[in-house]
């Protein structure tokens, strides 16, 4: 979050624009920053904010984009990923948007980025105190699928009345023998608020716990912002006899051989042929580059 400087100079030379740095006007950014500050002060609590209409459809990352626009400075280095990859169309589109409206440097390297906007993944490369991760959130309310009325869920949060969620997980166990939630797996933040980690695979949940990087969550359509300040304890729900567990693969990445990263399954033919590759493209490319050097 660097101080704004002479903004005109960072825009693409020759591009005619009447838009402010990073698209949003400064008053809107101030409003969003206030919501972010409140969110940081109450970890895991969903702060309502007057989400603006963005030039991207609702549900496609408008919340993440507003948070990014509000905290982005001209000296930031931005990375945008979707499903762990820098080159998926929506990630490309959002990165292009900030290149165009803010003229900031962008990167695909996790280690080089100061600000990472993500959809559905947390990078495999460990994050640092100098980084901010912005999550795109479709449904910020972890209880919404159990209780769609916000008037009710607000009350449940106020009273820390989360029995409904525990009952849901328990019913999973009675029906399937295990908890049947594999992504958007609910967490308890700082021993208080139940929070949706956004639809990241539960594989990524442990990366939330005491993360050195500030994590900001933006839900544009639902008009909510919430946050995990650095080093906040984050516990994934579970039971003593059915503790939280992450996914495992019997395979390794076909490209880099990684056994510790989240793998995407790629169907290679119509006879059941498949291979597994890292979902985090930067992690995979880095390992391959290292392997070639070694």
């Amino acid at each position, binding site marked *: 979050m660097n101080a704004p400087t002479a903004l005109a100079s960072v825009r693409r030379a020759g591009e005619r624009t009447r*838009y402010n740095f990073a*698209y949003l*006007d400064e008053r809107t950014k101030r409003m969003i920053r206030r919501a972010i500050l409140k969110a940081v002060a109450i970890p895991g609590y969903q702060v*309502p*904010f*007057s*989400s*603006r*209409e*963005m*030039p991207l*459809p*609702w*549900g*496609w990352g*408008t919340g993440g984009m507003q948070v990014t626009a509000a905290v982005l400075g001209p000296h930031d280095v931005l990375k945008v990923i*979707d*499903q*762990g*990859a820098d*080159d*998926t*169309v*929506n990630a*490309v*589109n959002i990165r*292009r948007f900030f290149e165009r409206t803010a003229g900031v440097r962008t990167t695909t390297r996790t280690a080089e980025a100061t600000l990472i906007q993500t*959809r*559905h*993944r947390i990078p495999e490369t460990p994050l640092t105190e100098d980084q901010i991760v912005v999550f795109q959130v*479709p449904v910020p309310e972890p209880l919404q699928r159990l209780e*769609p009325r*916000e*008037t009710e869920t607000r009350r449940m949060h106020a009273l820390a009345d989360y029995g409904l969620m525990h009952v849901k997980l328990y019913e999973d166990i009675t029906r*399937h*023998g*295990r908890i*049947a939630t*594999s*992504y*958007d797996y609910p967490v308890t933040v700082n021993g208080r608020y139940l929070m949706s980690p956004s*639809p*990241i*695979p*539960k*594989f990524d949940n442990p990366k939330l716990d005491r993360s050195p990087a500030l994590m900001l969550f933006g839900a544009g*359509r639902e*008009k*909510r912002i919430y946050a995990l300040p650095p080093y906040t304890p984050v516990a994934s729900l579970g039971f003593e006899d059915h503790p939280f567990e992450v*996914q495992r*693969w019997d395979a390794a990445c076909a*490209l880099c051989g990684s056994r510790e990263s*989240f*793998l*995407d*399954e*790629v169907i*290679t033919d119509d006879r059941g042929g498949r291979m597994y*590759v890292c*979902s985090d493209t930067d992690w995979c490319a880095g390992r391959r580059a290292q392997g070639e050097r070694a």
Partner: protein
Amino acid sequence: MYVAVKGGERAIENSLRLLAEARRGDPAVPELSVAQVREQLRLAVDRVMTEGSLYDPDLAALALKQARGDAVEAIFLVRAYRTTLPRLGYSLPLDTARMRLARRISAAFKDLPGGQLLGPTFDYTQRLLDFALESPSSPPPAPEAPASAAAVPGVLELLAAEGLIESHAPEDDSVEPPDLTREPPAYPASRAARLQNLARGDEGFLLALGYSTQRGYAHSHPFAGEIRHGTVEVELVPEELGFPIVIGEVELTECQMINQFAGSKTCPPQFTRGYGLAFGHCERKAMAMALVDRALRARELGEAVTAPAQMEEFVLAHSDCLEASGFVQHLKLPHYVDFQSELELIRRLRAGSGAPAA
């Protein structure tokens, strides 16, 4: 192979060029001008202005041209533009009693002060395809009545004078109406907030909900007390002047529904109101909005909330065409991380249940 299935900058750029070509259609056919859209597809322009919540026929026409005639996409373009505009001020409340009428009908009275004025309407066209329109044609000028400068009071005010219908004083004058484009929604919402939401709400959604109230889901026996369409002056009090000046006029459609109300121990029987308002000539929208507005007043009027049209959160949270369209269509975005997680889980569950391996 793996990288090839992913998108990327070039794919997007090529897609944009294909889109521009598709928008233009056959280059042998003359291109549509924005003015042609504005003048000849006026009702589409009106819908884009209403749901785009921006009164600017030229921009709405441009958006329709750019959106290849897709109303929701055009509304999106207008909203994304509108959101960047600064707020210069708020107008005084519009006085629709002083509307310069193009049309005004009441289904409640055969005749009434100001008269019934049919105006331009599809209602009695018989809906036969007019093949004469296949070639350019100029209709002969329509006869016009001399314009009257006198204000035409609303039908419902005539009933209000007798106390037969509730007055429509704002819930509380001291409370500023919220601005839903500047504040997050809060439930329960005030009627002012609800009406703002409905005014920009999707026409199809409100039409279906309004229709449902006529089929027993929150029945409240509506009469179209008055529908009027015409132009109204917009007045603003600039700080440096301290008195109102007219800054322009807008075309509006207003619908006032009269609904049944049984009354209670403390309140003698009285008709109640439902209100609809839209930019331009959006009669279907204004009528549907009035039905839904009335249904949403259930709690205030002590009626049981049993039907979807009465459920405030359900209606308000799902009325916006852009929110709905965006979230439904976000399913096009890659979800393969989540899907992979589900695959892993379902294989594990099936293995646990002894199902044959796939």
